[in-house]
């Protein structure tokens, strides 16, 4: 079915295959074409019922990421990355708390590369030997993360913000946890989460006309059983943070401060898209380049880098994470807390910020990867593509935004300090 992003001059061919795979094809006037396939399986899923079993199964932290690495190994062909490279394509994969994605881009041999991408996610091959070999590689990746004080600050903050959900663990897991991963665990995860009905295929750019037909023919050769709904363990996450403060000692020159907030949206009656957009605008107004807070930080020689922020939605909670580097810790955390909870902002600032939000929406169609990313993200988070995104952004208004912000509770926070151990 053909859909159109209103006001953005972009058409999308959208279809759900018989096996449940959701496919989105977005032709664009570019040389490059990109395809991304995403499974709704990320690092936060550590307890679920495998398709062929009745009992919940617990898996080690880092399994989704480990599985991502091992999908590139194949029994009857050479390493998948080799095939992409031999065709001149750029390819990679990533895992986050929510999903695992695999993608390539190339201006030539699109269908050859698409076949390779689909082979990548449909032909698992895990052995004792290849799993053991990957452990050393992933262990080095994990160690590099813990060696970096900024990443350590983030790991500590998210861990202390949440109490129950595995969302709190590092995506890659720990050196100890990955040692418990076996081929059997990987197969159970694969057969549960890599079924096409749990996946999204997004294609954009210089796409051959026969692409949809090609995808259908590819999957027609694979006999997929109808899948039962996936049962993932739910966690009763409390409103409070797990731990409100932690000091981590590292050999650092300046102190690193990371300030996490846990904001419940359980009782907010508003579409998730709007909640996210209004919060984004609010944080830009309060902490962005036009804010008084940012000006004060710049003029304060104790604060060495602008206070930047990151927002992510996890089930019923929004995680807001601020970070900065300072000479002395002083009252910086209190300043962030007070500014976030002040909740006063003007309609003028709201309109100015949303004007640029609208500009960014117009520019979504500039690049093959940005439109690909937005389609994939919408389906992950909202269950569908918001083709009226331009009108939605345009309709955001001060009154509704202010009301939402007034209803959000920014009082549950955790504070992390990375500092040098006192002599």
């Amino acid at each position, binding site marked *: 079915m053909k859909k159109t992003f209103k006001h953005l001059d972009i058409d999308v061919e959208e279809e759900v295959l018989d096996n449940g795979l959701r496919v989105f094809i977005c032709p664009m006037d570019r040389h490059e074409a990109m395809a991304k396939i995403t499974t709704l399986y990320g690092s936060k899923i550590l307890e679920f019922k495998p398709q062929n079993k009745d009992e919940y199964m617990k898996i080690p932290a880092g399994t989704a990421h480990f599985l991502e690495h091992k999908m590139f190994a194949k029994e009857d062909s050479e390493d998948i990355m080799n095939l992409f490279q031999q065709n001149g394509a750029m390819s990679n994969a990533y895992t986050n708390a929510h999903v695992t994605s695999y993608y390539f881009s190339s201006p030539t041999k699109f269908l050859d590369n698409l076949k390779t991408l689909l082979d990548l996610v449909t032909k698992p091959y895990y052995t004792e030997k290849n799993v053991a070999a990957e452990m050393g*590689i992933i262990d080095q990746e994990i160690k590099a993360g813990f060696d970096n004080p900024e990443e350590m600050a983030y*790991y500590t903050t998210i861990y202390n913000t949440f109490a129950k959900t595995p969302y709190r663990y590092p995506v890659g897991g720990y050196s100890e946890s990955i040692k418990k991963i076996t081929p059997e665990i990987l197969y159970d995860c694969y057969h549960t989460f890599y079924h096409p009905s749990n996946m999204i295929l997004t294609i954009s750019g210089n796409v051959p006309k026969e692409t949809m037909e090609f995808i259908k023919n590819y999957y027609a050769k694979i006999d997929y059983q109808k899948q039962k709904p996936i049962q993932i363990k739910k966690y009763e996450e409390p409103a409070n943070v797990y731990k409100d403060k932690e000091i981590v000692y590292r050999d650092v020159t300046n102190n690193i401060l990371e300030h996490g907030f846990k904001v419940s949206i359980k009782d907010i009656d508003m579409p998730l898209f709007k909640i996210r957009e209004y919060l984004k605008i609010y944080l830009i107004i309060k902490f962005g*380049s036009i804010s008084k807070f940012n000006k004060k930080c710049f003029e304060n020689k104790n604060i060495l880098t602008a206070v930047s922020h990151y927002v992510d939605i996890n089930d019923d909670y929004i995680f807001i994470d601020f970070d900065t580097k300072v000479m002395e810790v002083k009252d910086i955390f209190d300043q962030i807390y007070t500014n976030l909870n002040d909740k006063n902002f003007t309609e003028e600032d709201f309109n100015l910020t949303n004007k640029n939000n609208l500009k960014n929406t117009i520019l979504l169609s500039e690049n093959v990867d940005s439109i690909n990313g937005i389609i994939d993200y919408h389906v992950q988070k909202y269950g569908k593509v918001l083709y009226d995104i331009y009108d939605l952004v345009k309709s955001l208004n001060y009154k509704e935004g202010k009301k939402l912000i007034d209803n959000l509770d920014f009082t549950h926070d955790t504070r992390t300090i990375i500092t040098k151990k006192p002599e």
Partner: protein
Amino acid sequence: MNYKKAKMKNYDLYFIKTKKFKTISASLYLTREVTKEDEVYCAILRKVLLYATNQYHNLDELCRAGMALYDPSVSIGFVKSGLDRTFYLETTFVNEKYTEKGMNKKSLEYALSHLWDPYVKKGAFDNEIFEICKHEYIETMRRIKDDPDRFTEERIWEEMHLYSFGEMTVQACIKYASKLTAKDLYNYYLSLFEKDSLSVFVAGDFDENAIKEVLDNNIKGNFKPNYKLRPLKGVKRKERMLTEKAHTEQSKLAIGLRYVGLTDFERKYVSLVYNNILGSGWNSKLNKTIRLANSLCYYIYAVRRLSFDAAFIYSGIDAAATDKTIKLIKQEIANMHTNISDREIDRVKEIYNNALTEIEDNQMAIINNVIMQVLSDTDSIDERRKNMAKVTIDDVKNMADKVNIDTIYLLEGDADNEEDL
């Protein structure tokens, strides 16, 4: 992609017309021979110029004015390239066809004001802003040692001694910056418009005369005539190894290579194939041996710095297996003399040709491609395709004779220093 040159009063202007994008992009390149102190001046100057202008004395006022214009992106930076350094301003803004009439002129003027209309008081930059930017710079430099990857890159660069005048070390930069005044920096700023040559590049769908008029009214200076960026020729030194300790679990390894006596064809084409086969991408010899066959690292790659006739291999490695890793890397460098296949060469050529094709998909890439042709001696895209097709296995093997290990730097982690949450 074709471009058109327009001769302005004392600088060159290049127009690249394309209707593929909703934005207009411009790059302004100020270039001259590099000196030891440029590193410090340019790093602080870019901060000062981005924080205020003569019209907007605070960052929030400046940003607010930008947001009223649909937030044009403005970046200022510098690059040291061989014997020269470039100080640049880049901007991208939404074409007024998609916003409001008059926005192209206002957006470009806004961007140019950062460089040509700074906040100056009594013949110097505003002292308060200068001191904040200087302090930020010094602390950023001091903090480099906290990031093992960045620290390793700095140290190998310092130890390679690529400049005849000696690279300024991190410590030397800090010392030099500490003594700098707002007046010193302003004088350096003024020298940009006396000692540098200027080239301006604009890409997008626009009225050429309207753009010329904005540039004419805003760009001031007695610029030098254009000259080409010049590479620094590699010299051979005896291999040396340096180890320093770190409080990390992993070790960081950097190996600096020098290319000595390359021909023009080798510099432009063969070295790219050589570097890719050795250490770029999944299929590289280093990745296959160090990561895939021996599980000794998560990443290993080689990167060329052609304007210095140099390349660097970087890896985060198992602290307990340093000797084995270095030995295997050396073996793979030695293999480049003999063990090269057609398949490896074809892979690099395919990737290279695709990268050339994709230039037209990105407006800044289009501009950068023209900049490379105008300021350095880079060939046109068509010539590059033809020349790359000529590279043979023998060319790569011959090039291997001209690659020398200069410095091995190890930031040694402590394998027993384990700590998890």
